[in-house]
């Protein structure tokens, strides 16, 4: 099963830092996501993209996770030479993860 099947995500950017939310469609899947989708797993899954540290925040009140990924946007939005300088499409790269 892919994350895509049970959860959704939005990517955001701050300088060279990428933020990825992970939100289960069913709040009852939250604890399973906490268990399976660790910061290490996200870093390994996106190793071609994220060069720095990944920190995971848990938000039980809204049953959501947030991954904050350092050095992930090829020098940052304003000076990047990649197609998607904001990393806006990367939410769907996260959702490709098999669990």
């Amino acid at each position, binding site marked *: 099963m892919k994350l895509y099947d049970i959860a959704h995500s939005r990517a955001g950017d701050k300088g060279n830092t990428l933020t990825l939310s992970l939100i289960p469609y069913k709040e009852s899947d939250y604890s399973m996501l906490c268990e399976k989708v660790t910061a290490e797993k996200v870093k390994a899954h996106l190793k071609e*993209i994220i060069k720095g540290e990944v920190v995971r925040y848990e*938000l039980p009140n*809204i049953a959501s996770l947030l991954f904050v990924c350092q050095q992930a946007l090829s020098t*940052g*939005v*304003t*000076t990047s030479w*990649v*197609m998607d300088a904001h990393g806006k499409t990367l939410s769907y*790269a996260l959702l490709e993860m098999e669990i």
Partner: protein
Amino acid sequence: MKEKIRVGCGAGFSGDRLDPAVILVEHGELDYLVLECLAERTIALAQKRKLQNPQAGYDPLLERRIELLLEPLLRKRVKLITNMGAANPQAAAGKIIEIAKRKKLQVKVAAVVGDDVLTSIDPTAPTLETSQPLVTHGSLISANAYMGVEGILEALQTNADIIITGRVADPSLFVAPMMHAFGWTEQNYDLLGKGTVLGHLLECAGQLTGGYYADPGKKDVPDMAHLGHPFVDVQADGSGMLGKVKGTGGLINLDTVKEQLLYEVVNPHAYYTPDVIADFTSVKLMQHAQDEVKVMGGAGQSKPNTLKVSVGYQAGYLGEGEITYAGTNAVGRATLAGEIVKERLRSVLPDLRIDLIGQNSVHGNAFHRNEPYEVRLRVATKTSDASLAALVGEEVEALYTNGPGGGGGVRKYVHETIGIVSTLIDRQLVKPQIIVKTS
């Protein structure tokens, strides 16, 4: 003191649609309309326009937005708060007065200035991102401090119809009218934290109402061509009810709100604005009715002693060229085309970015699937020299007659790049001032 105010957000970035704000004013029964139009880089670009023309430097869509909104705003008694002043709020206010006079409308406009700290900033101050002195990045073009609510509050007290700012933290555009209406003080950190949550939810406009959310078959959103932009009914206790005008497209549900709550947040325990360090982890959401979500919680404890300054610098040029290949062995021909360009430019541009759009251009090769039927080669470079940057497009274009078979649809671009880095400044050094003009 009021018990409730309704604040709408009719634009979430400079290039946003024009019509949702008009619908909000005409049918939203708003007290305040906010238009958030200033991204990190926008102000540096505006500063460059101002250098060429002292009357320029405000948002390029200001005139079109005001032409549409001015009469309904005044008729419906909705106050407008916007950062469309960009690098030149004073000139923006003057332009609004000019439009009002032509339309024979009475309007009072307050410009909030004081964010421009280019002359007072220390160029050897460390950059937050790299710890290197600011000047090492390149020639500095602009330096704008993120101001908080102070200037907007003062402008609200003048009873201005329109308040136009330069760089102000996005949530402050929303928190200021809440403070003004409910008598919250600058030390009511818990309430400011709650208000900041609501401001953060609204600041990207359509991103709360189903925009940037839809995925057909999985997350369906109705009538996105007519997406309604959001408003919030804020209570004096800092709780809010999110909604949109009936009959508009889009949707508001727990999922759209969760996606936006966490958007661009780097620490949900400590979301920094000039007004408050807000906690987003205590936020609770409840679907109240169709397209209505109640927002409770959120908190704040203090405010930072320093303000963030966004510094724009000359970062050279981005040169790009693109060409498409299709049919059997499209990937093979595109790959060969990229190798040819690389070899041709090796001596002058040893560092080239080669992408196959449709195959690996945004997520790399980790998620590679079957070969696409068509693929677009993109070659890019970054260089301090504009003519070198242009060489990339020229070489890609020359593939027409010198490269692999069947290449088509060449586009070439050279863009001047403005880099943005950040530094901190003592907040005592940033003094907001207001300039009031009437038609």
